[in-house]
């Protein structure tokens, strides 16, 4: 008993002496820890708003009217419910379409770039396709809305389609809800296609050239080498990125939808993020917006944790 106390005493003393010894490291890191707690953890206390009928005019958080789970019920029923469920559908559909298009597109582009033997040409193409990544969404939205406008305002898509006689009349892309999901996916594709190839190209540089030589001896042509050597070699990267993107599926992005959305296409354009923004900031319904935000965070955490778990099971490194 006495020995145990002594050991504990000694232990405590050694903790203090370690702290004193490492005071410089502590000064370098603990203020930043407190900073992070303030900006990332303290806001979570705002989740109490979800259980209140929150009025910004009342100063103290505890003087608010507590309503239990009323806001959760409100979010999924009635007129709000219809809108919220529609927004979940839009988020998932846009995200899924974007994921499929840019995922397949960037793997294909990486394969094609990998076949280019002229280093200078390859570098030029790479740099050109990386460029849109550095433009802001607001610029991209402007370029997309110009490209999709009428021929008289320089709508290049309509001009090309009419020159090729695919259509006879210009199409009003931005005011027809049926096109909106495609426009979102297309904008993402344009902006990120080149950038997304980087990780695949990096994986391809690690492929042992002996594999290609062996395939050559076996008489494999170019397509067979792509299919049987390059693709299997980057499979781990492909799988990991797919799993992770499924984990982030509720992050459909929100800027392009916000910029290009208008009253005519709102049925297909509004996402969860825009719902939160409109209810919270514009309509002042803080409680409902917080509930919607909590819903999104919780579902995201579940998805990401599952994705992480699956990739752990598959024996891959955990990415997040």
């Amino acid at each position, binding site marked *: 008993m006495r020995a145990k106390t002594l050991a504990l005493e000694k232990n405590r003393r050694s903790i203090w002496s*370690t*702290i004193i010894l490492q005071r*410089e*490291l502590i000064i*370098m*890191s*603990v203020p*930043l*820890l407190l*900073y*992070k707690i303030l*900006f990332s*953890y*303290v*806001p979570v206390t*705002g*989740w109490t*708003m979800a259980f209140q009928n929150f009025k910004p005019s009342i100063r103290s958080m505890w003087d608010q009217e507590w309503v239990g789970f009323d806001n959760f019920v409100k979010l999924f029923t009635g007129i709000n419910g219809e809108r919220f469920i529609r927004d979940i559908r839009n988020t998932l559909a846009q995200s899924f379409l974007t994921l499929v298009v840019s995922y397949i597109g960037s793997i294909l582009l990486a394969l094609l*770039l990998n*076949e*280019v*033997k002229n280093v200078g*040409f390859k570098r030029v*193409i790479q740099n*050109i*396709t990386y*460029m849109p990544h*550095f*433009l*802001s969404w*607001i*610029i991209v939205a*402007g*370029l*997309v*809305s*110009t490209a999709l406008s009428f021929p*008289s*305002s*320089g709508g290049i898509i309509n001009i090309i389609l009419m020159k090729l006689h695919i259509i006879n009349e210009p199409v009003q892309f931005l005011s027809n809800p049926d096109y909106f999901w495609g426009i979102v996916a297309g904008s993402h594709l*344009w902006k990120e296609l080149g950038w997304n190839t*980087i*990780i695949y190209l*990096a994986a391809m540089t690690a492929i042992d050239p002996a594999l290609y030589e062996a395939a050559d001896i076996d008489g494999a042509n170019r397509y067979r080498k792509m299919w049987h050597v390059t693709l299997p070699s980057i499979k781990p990267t492909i799988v990991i990125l797919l799993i992770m993107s499924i984990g982030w599926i509720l992050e459909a992005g929100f*800027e392009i939808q916000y*910029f*290009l959305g*208008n009253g005519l296409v709102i049925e297909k354009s509004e996402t969860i993020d825009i719902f*939160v*923004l409109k209810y*919270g*900031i514009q309509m002042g319904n803080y409680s409902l*917006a*917080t509930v919607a*935000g*909590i819903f999104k*965070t919780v579902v995201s*955490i579940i998805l*990401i944790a599952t994705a992480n778990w699956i990739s752990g099971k598959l024996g891959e*490194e955990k990415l997040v």
Partner: protein
Amino acid sequence: MKKRKKLSAENVIFTTCNTTFLILLSAAMLYPMLNTLAISFNDGMDTVRGGIYLWPRIFSLQSYRVVFNMDTIYGAFMISVLKTIIIVITNLFFTSMLAYALSRREYIFRKFITTVFVLTMYFNAGLIPNYMLIKNLGMINTFAVYWVPNIISAFNLIVIRTYIKSIPESLIESAKIDGAREFRIFLQIVMPLCVPTLATIALFVAVGSWNSWFDTFLYCSGKQSLSTLQYELQKLLASAMNAGNNPAAASISASQAATQGGATNVATSQSIRAAITIVTAVPILLVYPFLQRYFVHGLALGGVKE
């Protein structure tokens, strides 16, 4: 012999198709930007007639003259530059300082602090609670809201820490034997060795800050003197898109823009928008080649995490 010939013919066809496709793809990437550039240098009244593709028909600097004379744009440009510089400096300094502390194996709070930061990559309190925090801190409509919430990002922290761990331990130990304190080791030994990674992260942080629109929209839209270029551009785009359904509004906003600039010639909203787009896009595209030689290496490193 015959087989080899067939193979090479196949190769030629493939290479031709591949090259053509890649050139077409690059054209699709470049066209919208070149088109905007051409419109921005074309005479405003002439642009309205349409048919400007890659080259201005009537060369004119009028739109740029108008844009640079607009007080709002000049102020927004300065705020964007200032904000980006401050964020890059503070973010790199604080993130790498923390990364250094967390890379020391003997540091007792290493695990705890790392966990606190890594967890923030998974969850977000949400828009409204964050807004309330900023509001309660009295940071609405202040310059501080641009950089104070952004001095550390968990992802960059992990990337830098991983990089620091690859620095030979003996280097740090020998500095300690020579009597250097932790802060000095960080500043004079570790930071210079991290330049490739820091350059990459600087690029990402700079792009993120320069391109951000939401912080201005959410927190600073009430104060014109804190407006940024992206926000000004968004306002113009929004009015142009409304005007798409209502052409009268377009000419009004154009003439407003023109009078604001004190211009004698009328520059159309389309030319003004093109000029502002170019002014907004060019600075970040200029930074890119300087940092480019670092980033492929740095990005590959970023993929390796624990």
